[in-house]
């Protein structure tokens, strides 16, 4: 019995061992080498430009940027944190924001913000409150994004498809959304999906793609049907396993396998989650006429498309509850174990500053989180022939955030896996509903084992 206790105690010792004490306010403010982790390769270019300016102003501080692909980002960083290491400063996305708050992986910057007299009202208020919890602030907002629909203007013109100014859908009837998709889905004989002669097995171009992801995929459609992944921030269970949710997912499934107007999920990578931005390539290659995506994807899409055709942007179609978009913004958080806190805080302030956000906006990488600077981003893309006002319109409408509760990123991963079958083949409402229920069950377990 005592052996049992002893081994438990030993294991508890292993388990309770904390990897060192946190040391904010450490290091020199003028000389340091910092590591900055992020995931988006397009924005990386912009941030490197911004950091170059920072390094010139702070000659003793050098910054190396580490890019980790998004699907692995949270687990990779968390693995580094568990070994007491990790980058000095790093991007944080909302799915795992509360997990990292709970795990004390980010420095509370509130005291430093007030000491430096940083005016938080310069930022979009909802982004500030998103990253605030119980009085602690974990980073300075630096960008925002919404979801809209890129479309191939040449394709629409060539096939005489009217560009929708407002369009809508409902789970029971596809509405004008379905109709536009049908007009835009053309088979190898040039017949579109409204015609009885349409051949679903030899489609040349699909109307659009919709991936198995919360932000650029089903999250928007769920919200437009009045469904939210979690009922409120820091909730302990999910709330998307409802009949309205089932109908929404079935609608998406039908668009792929009944109406054949969305590209089959198998083209979108593992479980149709599109980890490597296949949608850009598909859009550029003319395999899809429309790409539902976020504004940060513009750089990648534009690079793939080149001079092949003109890219247009329209807002998402309206659902039974109106037009909704997922709205997001990132922060840079600081590692509590960094030995270079002072220098990292300098970098944090720079990245949150109007000067840095100007560089990012002017280069067309992201919408800056300081509202006055929006025009820079829009102007850049207008110069390239892409009208980004669709995204801006979304941002003034109904918005929903990523679900923000501990364990949610694991929950979303499990949900995507459990709902994979919905994207990968035809099925009935019962089957879809079962997949959604399994997803909810596994997500709830992720939330339960991560909380507190």
């Amino acid at each position, binding site marked *: 019995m005592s052996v049992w206790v002893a081994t438990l105690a030993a294991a508890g010792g292993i388990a309770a*061992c904390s*990897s060192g004490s946190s040391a904010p306010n450490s290091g020199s403010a003028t000389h340091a080498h910092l590591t900055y982790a992020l995931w988006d390769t397009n924005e990386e270019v912009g941030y490197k430009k911004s950091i170059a300016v920072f390094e010139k102003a702070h000659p003793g501080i050098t910054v190396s940027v580490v890019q980790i692909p998004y699907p692995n980002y949270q687990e990779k960083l968390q693995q*580094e944190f568990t070994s007491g290491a990790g980058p000095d400063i790093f991007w944080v996305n909302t799915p795992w924001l509360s997990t990292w708050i709970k795990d004390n992986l980010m420095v509370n910057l509130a005291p430093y913000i007030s000491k430096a007299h940083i005016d938080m009202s310069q930022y979009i208020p909802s982004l500030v409150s998103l990253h605030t919890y119980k009085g602690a602030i974990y980073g300075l907002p630096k960008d925002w994004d919404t979801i809209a629909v890129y479309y191939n203007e040449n394709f629409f013109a060539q096939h005489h498809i009217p560009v929708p100014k407002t369009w809508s859908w409902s789970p029971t009837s596809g509405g004008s959304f379905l109709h536009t998709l049908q007009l835009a889905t053309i088979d190898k004989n040039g017949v579109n999906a409204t015609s009885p002669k349409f051949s679903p097995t030899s489609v040349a171009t699909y109307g659009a793609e919709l991936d198995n992801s919360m932000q650029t995929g089903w999250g928007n459609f769920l919200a437009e049907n009045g469904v939210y992944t979690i009922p409120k921030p820091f909730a302990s269970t999910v709330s998307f396993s409802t009949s309205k949710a089932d109908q929404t997912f079935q609608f998406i499934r039908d668009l792929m396998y009944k109406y054949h107007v969305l590209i089959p999920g198998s083209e979108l990578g593992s479980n149709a989650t599109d980890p*490597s931005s296949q949608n850009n390539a598909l859009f550029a290659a003319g395999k899809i006429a429309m790409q539902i995506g976020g504004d940060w994807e513009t750089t990648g899409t534009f690079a793939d498309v080149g001079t092949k055709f003109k890219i247009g942007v329209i807002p998402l179609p309206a659902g039974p509850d109106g037009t909704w978009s997922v709205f997001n913004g990132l922060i840079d958080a600081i590692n509590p174990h960094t030995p270079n806190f002072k220098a990292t805080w300098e970098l944090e302030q720079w990245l949150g500053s109007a000067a840095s956000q100007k560089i990012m906006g002017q280069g067309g990488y992201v919408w800056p989180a300081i509202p006055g600077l929006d025009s820079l981003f829009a102007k850049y893309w207008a110069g390239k022939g892409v009208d980004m006002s669709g995204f801006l319109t979304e941002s003034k409408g109904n918005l929903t955030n990523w679900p923000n509760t501990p364990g949610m990123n694991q929950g979303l991963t499990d949900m995507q896996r459990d709902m994979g079958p919905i994207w990968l083949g035809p099925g009935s409402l019962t089957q879809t509903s079962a997949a959604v229920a399994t997803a909810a069950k596994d997500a709830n377990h992720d939330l339960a084992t991560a909380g507190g």
Partner: protein
Amino acid sequence: MSAPAVRLDEPVTPAPRKAGLAIGGRVIKVSVLYLILSIIALVFLVPYILTVFAAFKPISQIFTEPAWIPPKSLYLHNFSYDFVSGNFLRYLANTALVTIVLTIGQVVFSVMGAYAFARMHFPGRDKLFWVYLMTLMVPNAVTIIPLYAMMRMAHLLNTYWAIFLPYVLGAPYTIFLMRQFFRNIPQEVIDAARVDGCGEWRILARIIVPLSKPVIVTATLIAFVFGWNNFLWPLIVTNSQSHYVLTIGLANFQSNINSQWNYSLAASVITLFPLAVIFAVFQRHIIRSISLTQIR
């Protein structure tokens, strides 16, 4: 049933039938045999050949022409990209370092342990050997999590130590192999040396090891190939590029760049090349050592 150790160049075939008709039939049979074998051999050979072709082609050629067309010229950019931007030079160095240390340690310490079990006498020897054998039933997959926790407690995560430490202090399987071999070295030789006043270390170094070259070569190959190919353990125990080995580098590379096959196939070539060399040099020995197992 104690058959002598077999040699592979003395096969057994059923006796041929009557001559005459048999010869014509035999020619057909032989041709069919070679045909079947050659088709199967293609399945084994072709993936490697296609890979080597692709490694020397630019991505445009890979997308446009069939895989079985050889490259027009030796396009070396894939390799230089891999080594520099892809960091494979670093991964290669890391893998070499870790594998060599692992191999030397595993072989040396296994030789020592095997000698003790084979030719030294001490209380509890056989019981202890049984314990070693028992651990052969513990699969690699099962020790991963606890070893990770232990490494973390020792603050050894993300170090070279962590990668080779679990394997460097000798391996029970290798000890088993060597023990069997050492026991075939006549006891009289060792006794004579002991009577002459030779210490155990000298006996090991001067008598046992020189006589045991085949099994030591086998053990070295086993350790080296294991270390070179190891993936799951280094994957969980390292998390910065500076410490990645080839297997991790290759897996990450592949998932990041998705369809840039020219780069990832060149990286596969980099990973496989040393093993190909080893196999070419040692293939007779390798095949022999596997084939000489007798199972009754």
